């Protein structure tokens, strides 16, 4: 294994991602936000599981619930992208496969979040009624 990194770049603390601690910190901050958001999501899932279509629409149409759902989707979308990124960086060592998976991870996470947020907003703003 050839190491192109200089002792200085090692000393600067660049990790497997090739740069500093910003991703690490962002992952922790999003996990702090996800503690209350996850608990709320479990509550929301229980409410939604107990009602049919009309009840679910009414729940999502409530402004507080709509905002909470969008927050859950956005923060967990960010967090799962960050987490999967670390796993890819740990296990994939060949440049091409690693880059392809990192890009796929980003696209899938953003696409899932965009689709879900759009649908929730459509229902919340009256599009499903």
């Amino acid at each position, binding site marked *: 294994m050839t190491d192109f990194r200089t002792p200085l770049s090692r000393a600067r603390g660049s990790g497997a991602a090739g740069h500093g601690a910003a991703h690490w910190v962002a992952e922790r901050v999003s996990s702090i936000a*996800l503690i209350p958001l996850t608990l709320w999501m479990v509550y929301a899932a229980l409410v939604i599981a107990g009602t*049919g279509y009309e009840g679910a629409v009414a729940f999502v149409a409530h402004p507080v619930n709509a905002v909470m759902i969008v927050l859950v989707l956005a923060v967990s979308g960010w967090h799962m992208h960050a987490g999967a990124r670390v796993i890819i960086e740990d296990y994939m060592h060949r440049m091409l496969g690693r880059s392809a998976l990192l890009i796929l991870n980003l696209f899938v996470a953003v696409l899932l979040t965009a689709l879900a947020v759009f*649908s929730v907003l459509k229902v919340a703003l009256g599009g499903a009624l």
Partner: protein
Amino acid sequence: MTAPARERPLSPHLQVWRWHLTMLTSILHRVTGMALYGGAVIVTAWALALGAGPDAYQGFMDLMASPLGRLVLVGLTLSVFYHLANGIRHLFWDAGLGLSVTVSFRSGVMSMAFSVVATVIVWAIGLGSGAP
């Protein structure tokens, strides 16, 4: 830099470590995290079905009420609670707390126990409230 004599195992060294509890909790954290990635696909499908109207929504809910759907949802509930509890454990570690062998062993057992108990309670509430 001289090349090593042989290929050495790369991080996280899965193939050279003896199995122990804190290793299991760490691996479970990643496994449940990836399971929740799949959970995000299901949540997105729920949102799309809700936006698509009553028929699509009923189809989605029927799928979730099927035996396979139930199995997946129970697995996701376990994953949510384990990843939540173990994530809090990681946050304490990041703050430099609870890193001793005794405490990390104990908190690992607590994370796993919490995820099972919380899953049982949530499903008892869900099924008790007359969910289909």
